[in-house]
């Protein structure tokens, strides 16, 4: 029985599959989120240096990692869409962008709120925070370009090219910001220096996987709406039971 890999690359089949998959990502995400919060707040010990404020890292670190990870996945889908002309890949890239941007925003927000008690200022031109801010600008550029072009085909391909150029530039930006930061300030105290208690690592990991599953669930849900919007004139969309009822 040859597996037809490309069966689900057609929007018609993928729409149904995504619909079935969402609960399998959404519920585990919620469960892991609760577990992560429980370990993070009740099991993990109070930190010697900053007592309770450090618990923000259970949100700051996963969202930062994911904001970068989603950008690369988005650029990957965009490249696929550009090279193989598969509309679904471009739709997936478009669906991932808002979630990635929100993760970047949360990472900046929690970074600021964590920086205030730790470094005494709401915004510190720390290498990581600065690079995160630039990553948010890249996301906003992608979304703005996608939104400002009417013709979906050109919008997909143009924003795909931008995502590829962006992903090539991200390491360069990260390196030059780190260079710029150490040049002026010397690296600020690193949290990872202190060995992390096992409970902290468990909480961090649980939150990371929770956020990851959450982003998949939300993106799948959003891509389904994009499919509905874009395939509105097709026969199979109008046959759908949701439309009929």
């Amino acid at each position: 029985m040859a597996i037809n890999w490309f069966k689900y690359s057609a929007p018609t089949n993928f729409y149904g599959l995504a619909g079935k998959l969402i609960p399998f990502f959404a519920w585990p995400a919620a469960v892991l989120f609760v577990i992560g919060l429980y370990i993070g707040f009740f099991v993990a010990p109070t930190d010697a240096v900053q007592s309770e404020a450090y618990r923000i890292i259970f949100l700051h670190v996963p969202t930062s990692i994911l904001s970068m990870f989603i950008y690369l996945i988005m650029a990957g889908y965009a490249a696929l869409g550009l090279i193989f002309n598969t509309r679904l890949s471009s739709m997936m890239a478009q669906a991932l962008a808002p979630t990635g941007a929100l993760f970047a925003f949360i990472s900046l927000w929690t970074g600021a709120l964590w920086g205030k008690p730790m470094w005494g200022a709401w915004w510190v031109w720390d290498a990581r925070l600065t690079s995160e801010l630039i990553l948010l600008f890249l996301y906003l550029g992608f979304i703005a370009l996608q939104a400002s072009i009417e013709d979906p085909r050109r919008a997909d391909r143009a924003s795909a090219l931008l995502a590829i150029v962006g992903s090539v530039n991200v390491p360069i930006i990260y390196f030059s910001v780190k260079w710029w930061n150490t040049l002026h300030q010397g690296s600020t105290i690193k949290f990872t220096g202190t060995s992390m208690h096992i409970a902290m690592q468990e909480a961090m990991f649980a939150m990371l996987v929770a956020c990851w599953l959450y982003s998949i669930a939300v993106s799948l849900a959003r891509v389904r709406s994009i499919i509905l919007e874009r395939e509105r004139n097709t026969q199979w969309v109008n046959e759908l039971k949701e439309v009929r009822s």
Partner: protein
Amino acid sequence: MKKLSLLGLLGLVLRRDLLLAMRRRADVLTTLIFFVMVVSLFPLGVGPEIDMLRKMASGVVWVAALLASMLSLPRMFSADYADGTLEQMMLAPQSLSVLVLGKIAAHWMLSGLPLALIAPVLGLQFDMSVPALWILVIALLLGTPVLSMIGAVGAALTLGLRGGGVLVSLLVLPLCIPVLIFGAGAVEAVNSGMSVVSNLSFLGAFMLFALVFTPFVAAQALRISME
């Protein structure tokens, strides 16, 4: 009629664009005047203390250079796009990348080069030392081409979009941040007596990296926008 060599094509496009620009000299001056004005505004806003101005000088000049070159980006393709010559150019059996490279060079000569030449005069406003002025000009000569090249990709992507001018800046500025960091860093290094070689070599590396890739990427962007 012998087939046009690539360099011949480059020269042809460059001469054509410069000729067109010279007919509308106002556009060239607006970029320059904008640059001078933005740099002159800073002391009014920040205050005339000389030692602070001297410290800020390179950052201010570089940010103003970035903004000034963003200003003229949309015009790189829009005139030809409007009257259809861009379409003819793309149909011509010539390499689109070299053609785009010609346009980038023309844009650089009309925006990057004048900025670099006038920068020392503005440096005096900030009482910069002579070696610092030299390094500022060299850094600008190395950095502004990268702005034009990455800008060309942005301009090609946003061809014919309303509100394209602002959109180009939103797309392109984050990508030009490394050039800003090492450009301003070069002058900073001179002031603080450190060696300038590392900053300038990074700028050179960015320029070569951009020179290799952006013409092709901008050509792809044009094909996407013109479909």
